[in-house]
């Protein structure tokens, strides 16, 4: 082959690479721009508010930056008024750290329960005849077609004192009609709500990782003297770990900041940070404290998110 032969397609490929690089930049740029405008900028505003102080005004905090009025010099002067006072306040009242701790605990426990229910579900789906799988998958996704809020409301009807569950248990004589089960407005109801709502987020990644498991690996394990039970723990489970980790994060992260479920199903004793935040914002109209609570929640969640991404990157690297 001559040098020209080589050079011609190479320069072709070069221009091709340049246009495709531009195209790639555009494709990547759009979601980044979206995130910057609709996530980063609002978040920076929240951060700024968290460093402000409450005031009886509109908006209910001070200082308020207004470039048109203050100009650059005035804005810089106002920066000096920002303080860490709200963060100091968060440490003085045990309500906040108890809320965080309780949220993490409730989310963590719910994640474990969701895993315990979701794994057999996903395993059964991945092992059943191929022609059934799309239908079963559909049934997992189907609840999303109804509003999340309505589905949580429906649980009130099921769990209340005169609800469907109590009626059923009374009719079959398991529960004394004079003393129906009290589930609604307890933390138990919150667990039920979270597990129910987030189950698909656990099942789908688990199913994806179990479905691509090569069944000859299980045959190989059996061939080498492994009983089905041991084969599950030595082959199936370790190979489904990426799905387990993905599912756990997809449940845990949104569950920590959950507001609707504890608000509708939980009682006054259920402490969750989402509810605390709501109270600060709407009942106390304390925007700086509410903002500080949100910022710290985000910092707490960044840790598992970073772990999650590391794990994903590692999984990509090994091609599994």
């Amino acid at each position: 082959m001559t040098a020209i032969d080589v050079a011609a397609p190479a320069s072709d490929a070069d221009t091709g690479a340049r246009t495709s690089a531009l195209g790639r930049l555009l494709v990547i740029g759009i979601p980044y721009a979206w995130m910057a405008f609709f996530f980063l900028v609002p978040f920076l505003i929240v951060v700024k508010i968290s460093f402000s102080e409450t005031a009886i005004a509109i908006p209910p905090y001070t200082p308020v930056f207004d470039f048109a009025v203050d100009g650059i010099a005035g804005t810089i002067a106002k920066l000096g008024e920002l303080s860490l006072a709200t963060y100091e306040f968060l440490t003085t009242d045990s309500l906040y750290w108890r809320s965080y701790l309780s949220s993490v605990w409730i989310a963590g426990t719910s994640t474990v329960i969701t895993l315990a229910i979701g794994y057999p579900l996903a395993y059964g789906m991945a092992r059943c005849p191929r022609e059934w799988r799309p239908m079963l998958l559909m049934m997992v996704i189907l609840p999303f077609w109804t509003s999340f809020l309505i589905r949580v409301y429906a649980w009130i009807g099921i769990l209340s004192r005169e609800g469907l569950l109590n009626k059923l248990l009374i009719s079959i004589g398991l529960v004394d009609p004079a003393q129906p089960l009290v589930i609604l407005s307890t933390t138990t109801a919150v667990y039920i709500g979270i597990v129910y709502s987030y189950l698909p987020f656990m099942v789908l990644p688990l199913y994806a990782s179990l479905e691509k498991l090569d069944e000859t690996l299980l045959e190989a394990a059996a061939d080498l003297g492994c009983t089905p039970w041991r084969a599950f723990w030595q082959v199936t489970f370790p190979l489904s770990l990426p799905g387990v980790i993905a599912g756990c994060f997809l449940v845990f992260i949104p569950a920590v900041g959950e507001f609707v479920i504890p608000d509708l199903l939980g009682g006054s004793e259920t402490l969750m940070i989402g509810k605390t935040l709501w109270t600060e914002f709407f009942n106390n109209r304390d925007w700086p404290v509410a903002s500080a609570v949100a910022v710290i929640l985000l910092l707490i969640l960044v840790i598992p998110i970073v772990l999650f991404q590391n794990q994903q990157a590692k999984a990509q690297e090994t091609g599994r």
Partner: protein
Amino acid sequence: MSKQAIGPIRRSFAPWDDPAAKPLIEYRGVTKRFGDFVAVENLDLKIYTREFFALLGPSGCGKTTLMRMLAGFEDPTQGDVILDGKSVVGVPPYRRPVNMMFQSYALFPHMNVEQNIGFGLKQDGMSKADIAVRVAEMLKLVKLEPFAKRKPHQLSGGQRQRVALARSLAKRPKVLLLDEPLGALDKKLRQETQFELMDLQQELGMTFLVVTHDQEEAMTVADRIAVMDKGKIIQVATPSEIYEQPNSRYVASFIGDVNMFEGKTVPTADGITRIECGALGMAIESEGSHKPAAGEAAWFAVRPEKVRLTSDAPPDAAGVNAVPGEVWDIAYLGDMSIFHVKLANGQVMTATRANISRIVDKPIGWDDKVWLSWDRNAGVVLQG
């Protein structure tokens, strides 16, 4: 025909000729159905200790099903599978003293080479120290010592094949099952590995059962070959018998190249079968164990390398085992040349010639009129 030597004899090992020998593996009237599909039909087969046995056939012929019934992944619909004197029907795979090397290798992706090889030993509850010793032994056997800590995805195809082999050998099974063991390797590596497998089998004194669709592979490695078609065994014999004495058109054409003629048997003296091929004005005379009744239609097969190619009519032939034709195609392969010769009835016959000297006096070229002839013992009368 008496038991005369045909082809090279590898060693004096032929328990299948000894009526007193007890088979290690026996399939008795085994049938396996998947719904309406009959994968294996009323099949009998005996395999002996230390034998290297090959199941050969096209895909879908039931050879893999036959092997999987021995491994325990399938149970026969009817019949019995006996291993070492005991029926294994219904025994789960994890309680059978056989190990399998899978076609896809089925290496555990989350374990390194060492852990993969030691997996079966761990299941047996062997101590860690003993496992380490055995694994080291296996790594040495398959020459993979430097790769002990690698994961399967960091190995080449040939290396993975060796890990799979080591893993299935580690438990020292009574029978090693190999499902298309070399299918994923390139040709050169495949040939090397074939010889390594033979050496390994001799060294370990184990019984190997290999499933393959590659006739060359089966011929190279096996003591005996069972040629299968549509769930049935067509012929079981040593590689040389399969090649030199195929019992049917199917076996003759599945293994190697062959020229076949159809004709009618006519009465002859003892030991000779005479077939008249009316369309070619030729008679075929053959010595052989199979002698169809006079008047029956019969098929005769002769291998290309046993056909003589001459410019002149062979003397004394008188239309027996000799036929004229015209050279249609020549393929020069270096070590030999392949001639395609068109006969009077349009049938194309193949003959090969070893290129034993560099310069040929009267070379045979395209469109030349030639004669093809062969000896009485060159071909074989087929049974079906």
